[in-house]
């Protein structure tokens, strides 16, 4: 295996484009090294992007924040600005793995590993985050939800990698929350998970919402019916019940070692209601 640590995004893209055999990007390494150890993958080329200038930075941009692809969970959670604006994203990111894993894991890596159960993905999808993709022909932007297309598969072309993720600006009286279910308190993969982002008006009525579900389908689900159940309401019991029902209806889970279909359908609705309540409270409501 060849290991390369280029200093520019272009060099990295070039290496990835030219690599014959299996090429992989190394950011935090918390997925790829596990897969290599288990013999699931044997890359011929590993491109370490951490030496690319600026890729470990969190930069304010248009009222939001651009998160470099090599920013670790620990670094993001120490960033007061991001935590204040997108607490749901921060808490979702923080739930990935242990303290040790937090020292290494990245948002972009969590996204591009394309696990259906990735913790940060429902949160950044709910947040409407935009990924910047660097490729041999330059950069392009893409909604984060369009990147995972199947378990372990992304829409990225050969030579492309995610170099940063933009968490956009958000209006006043808006916030987000993320909840997942695991059997223990830590160190587990989500059995099901929900990210909710919402905006309230001055009277506390929800004017905008995005609800994303994890681990209940091959890829993250952005559930429009769930958002619609909240919009126009003050998140009263009826709205929350409709939210839960919409989430359960949208689920396409499987039975596996981590949970059953029935359990995932039920608990997704529970988590959605709880997450919506937390986001509402963070957004300043009920106003």
């Amino acid at each position, binding site marked *: 295996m060849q290991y390369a640590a280029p200093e520019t995004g272009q060099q990295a893209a070039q290496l990835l484009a030219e690599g014959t055999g299996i090429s992989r990007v190394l950011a935090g390494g918390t997925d790829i090294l596990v897969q290599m150890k*288990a*013999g699931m993958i044997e890359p011929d080329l590993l491109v370490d992007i951490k030496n690319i200038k600026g890729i470990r930075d969190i930069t304010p941009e248009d009222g939001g924040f651009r998160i470099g692809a090599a920013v670790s969970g620990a670094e993001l959670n120490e960033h007061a600005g991001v935590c204040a604006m997108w607490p749901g994203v921060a808490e979702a990111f923080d739930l990935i793995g242990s303290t040790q894993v937090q020292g290494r894991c990245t948002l972009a890596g969590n996204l591009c590993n394309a696990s259906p159960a990735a913790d940060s993905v429902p949160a950044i999808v709910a947040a409407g985050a935009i990924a910047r993709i660097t490729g041999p022909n330059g950069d392009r932007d893409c909604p984060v939800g369009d990147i995972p297309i199947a378990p372990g598969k992304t829409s990225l072309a050969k030579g492309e990698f995610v170099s940063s993720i933009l968490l956009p600006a958000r209006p006043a009286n808006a916030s987000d929350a993320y909840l997942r*279910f695991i*059997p*223990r*308190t*830590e*160190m*587990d*993969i989500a*059995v099901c998970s929900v990210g909710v982002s919402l905006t309230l008006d001055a009277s506390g009525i929800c004017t905008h919402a995005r609800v994303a579900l994890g681990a209940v389908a091959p890829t993250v689900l952005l559930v429009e019916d769930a958002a619609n159940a909240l919009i126009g309401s003050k998140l009263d019991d009826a709205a929350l019940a409709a939210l839960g029902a919409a989430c359960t209806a949208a689920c396409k889970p499987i039975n*596996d*070692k*981590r*949970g*059953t279909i*029935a*359990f995932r359908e*039920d*608990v997704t609705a*529970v988590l959605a209601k709880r997450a919506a309540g937390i986001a509402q409270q963070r957004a300043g409501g009920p106003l």
Partner: protein
Amino acid sequence: MALDEYQKRDFKIIGTTPVRPDGVDKVTGRAQYGADFYLPGMLVGKMLRSPHAHARIKSIDVSAAKALPGVKAVVTGADFPATAKGDTLDVQEHCLANGVALYDGHAVAAVAAVDANVAKQALKLIKVDYEILPHVTNIEDAIKPDAPIVQAGRRGRHVPEGYSDNCTGWCEFGHGDLEAGFAKADKIITRTFKTSSTHQGYIEPNACLANMGADGRADMWCCTQGHFQVRNLCAQIMDMDQSALRVTASEIGGGFGGKTTVFIEPVALLLSQKAGLPVKLVMTRDEVFKASGPTVASMTDVRIGMTNDGKITAGDALIRYEGGAWPNSTIFPGAQSAFASYDLEAVRAQGLNTLTNRPLQAAYRAPGAPQSTYAVEAVVDELCEVLGLDPIDVRLKNAAQKGTKSSYGPTYDDIGLIQLLEAAKAHPHYSAPLGPNQGRGISNGFWFNFGGETSVSLALNFDGTITLVEGNPDIGGSRAAMSMMAAEELGIAYEKVRTIVADTASLGHNEVTHGSRVTFAVGLATIKAARAAKAEMCRRAAKIWGIDADAVVWEDGFAKPAGANAGEHDPMPIEKIAADSPRTGGPIVGHHEVTADGAGVSFGVHICDIEVDPETGFTKVLRYTVLQDAGKAIHPDYVEGQMQGGAVQGIGWALNEEYIYGEDGRLQNAGFLDYRIPVASDLPKIDTVILEIPNPGHPYGVRGVGETGIVPPLAAISNAMSRTIGVRMAELPMSPPRVLKAIKEKG
């Protein structure tokens, strides 16, 4: 035979909590565990494992692997000498398959190469032609008459009609007239319980380094609970003299029973023999889960009758255990211990063992007892609930005590169950208020405790310090306990004794560190070795003083004249006797060799509070209290540690730990991510109460404490769960999907 070893006395060192002798090494990273040994020219060994649950190995072609540069040896099961028989042959075939792969992960070949990458490549070059056979991985299917047969010719001679040939063992214990007993009951409850297979979950993967010379003599370093056992098993499998193999136990990174046998050690020896070089073989975590250790899974029917005022009139249990592809005898302690906490006029416990296409079970802390006790204690609790009785009062009313004929036959001597139950009832935990969605459970637990072959040597150095040499790997602080007992007996400072775990060439045989035997048996031998040394020191002082040896007594590290008649002599310190010893007859060494008996049974009572999220089935353990009889706690901190560790393993077993198999018979969760042992944030403080009801079989009254602690938690948590959600759960683990389903079905 009443035991009279115990003598009441005041202790100076016993009961204090000095720092363990291996402590500094373990907090600085110096301690050497199984994988921490290196030798010049050392090769890396790796194993090839079957991906099939059951398959005939039609052929194995290792030629391409052998031809790969850097590969020094490739072996299969056929390379072992064809001399092992009986149980040893079973162990050998579990290490390396011979003709048939019997479970997912069963090793079929092994390589030794100059580095890990070459070894990995070599494994890929081995071509195995499998013929897939029907498999079975659970009890219910395995005992059916038409089940796929795991190994032919293994049917047990007592197994009743109607069960498949997978059933290798049957046993029955008990006494009294069951039906007469049930006729006296006001309420009878019958239920079937299941537990999943769980793993010991030690953090250190199995590891060994073998170095065999062309003369057929070998050294081995490995993490094991019993290096003498490793030596004997390896010698039998490799057809070597036992003296030709010296095994040194490394520090051991946890065992809990799982490291009482061999998995890779004979293979490392075989590779080293073929390669003519040292070979290190270390299991990956995946291999640990797939091919070592797990405990038996169980399915148990229990029927218990009770009067309205809480007297148990009869108890009957049928335990069915499955422990992998070879016979095992876990049903014996399982059936014997099921009702051991109770004084019953009519009791029966029957046990059935069946084979499955899973790894051979290894002992796990009180092997067999948690599963059967769980079922019995759950039914007792349900009877209490149905009859409106306090669960501790009912246990007190029926508790076994001195003079009770136990459910497994013998009559109990001094035991502490009643004291434990009374202490539990008086504990503030038992009367603390509970909030919504919270419940409390309690359970008894019992374990036999063992003694066994033990050999100890205690040398007096010329400066008066002591080197104590014992032969049992220190798994929970036993070197500290031995140093304390030697120091107590000799009347010298703890720091003056250094306890060493010797290799197999340095002592007589020592039985495996199992059965909670070490503090009891090695402690007993240590005390007697110290007494032998004391007697010799008194003889030396007597010679110097020119008086009779029996006119000298030993006190606080000094030889003293026994009385005025012995003459006027200043007390002679151990340092002087030691310094003079070359001139008074030679080095002074006390030793003791024994097959220790009289271990003394042990009981525990656990109280547990949980809270259940009714919408998700998530269970939080809020509060946990362990009460246990230690006989005499030599080092109370380590006794507490055993009680806490056992309880937490039981909590994991009750709530989340399980072996999950797919339809294909493959293990789906062979890693710490999805085999969910408790993490720090899952747990509350584990409170402990140590009771000391002396064991008549030990000079200081010691009982084993290592295993009992894992017996009660399964039922304690299950009983708390049932009382919280209002549904009797009868299957472990009580994972959130199962709990939520039960809550929903109740409506």
